[in-house]
């Protein structure tokens, strides 16, 4: 499913602190962990903090790693906790309850029906559009954001996502659908405007 799932690591070597094996593990997973931090926090410095703290903690905990989940899922779990801790530290005034509550019970709202799929590729993937895509993720509540990032950016399966977050597969599916629909709404507003511009010439 994900990029390095085929890569095998010797748990014995990792647990015993073999530095070459640890370096190999870091190289195999560093892009994924950095990207997760970047998408969660939208700030390169924060992403780097998440990256460093994740591997520092992981290396410390490796001797006790039991291998019940894959190393990849385990690393994601540490990285998510690091990201959430940073979010809370950076925005102490942020009222989580207001954004978190109701995520799963909200009515699924559809308000945007512009058919922007036909926009030229240059519009769809312009750097401005890229910035908008990143900003849109930040608009999601934490709960939805983390599920969306693991599933649709990191391309974990539903099962792997549920293991990484320690929530049920049903909750993953519910949150994923809401996250996807909210992003579709936001993208439809943005690309809908591009479409109007295009039509106006």
């Amino acid at each position, binding site marked *: 499913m994900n990029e390095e799932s085929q890569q095998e690591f010797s748990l014995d070597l990792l647990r015993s602190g073999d530095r070459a094996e640890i370096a190999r593990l870091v190289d195999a997973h560093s892009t994924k962990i950095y990207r997760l931090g970047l998408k969660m926090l939208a700030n390169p410095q924060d992403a780097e903090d998440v990256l460093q703290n994740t591997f520092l903690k992981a290396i410390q905990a490796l001797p006790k790693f039991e291998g019940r989940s894959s190393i990849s899922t385990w690393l994601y779990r540490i990285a998510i906790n690091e990201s959430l801790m940073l979010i809370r530290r950076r925005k102490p005034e942020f009222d989580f309850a207001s954004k978190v509550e109701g995520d799963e019970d909200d009515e699924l709202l559809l308000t945007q029906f512009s058919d922007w799929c036909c926009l030229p590729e240059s519009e769809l993937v312009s750097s401005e559009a890229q910035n908008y895509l990143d900003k849109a993720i930040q608009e999601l509540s934490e709960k939805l954001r983390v599920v969306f990032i693991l599933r*649709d950016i990191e391309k974990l399966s539903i099962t792997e996502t549920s293991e990484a977050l320690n929530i049920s597969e049903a909750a993953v599916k519910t949150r994923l659908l809401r996250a996807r629909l909210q992003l579709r709404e936001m993208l439809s507003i943005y690309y809908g405007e591009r479409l109007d511009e295009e039509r106006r010439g």
Partner: protein
Amino acid sequence: MKEHLNCGALLESLSEYVDGVLGDALCEEIESHVAGCDDCRVVVDTLKKTICLYHETSEKTAIPLDVRERLFHRLNLDDFIEERKQT
């Protein structure tokens, strides 16, 4: 949307539908509904495109070399910095 009774039911299965993991019977139901409901067709198409655009962004993000270097330094793995380049 409101005039179509099936739109809401379709919505609940939409994720599984675009992921291609929905059973045949439900798939057929969605497809026949979408064929007659333009709003739902747009929702399905733009949802697929939304996910696809985010899939693509993940491939564009790689760890910068200086970030990797500082990481290896922080982990006391300096002697391995030169050994492995990003794949």
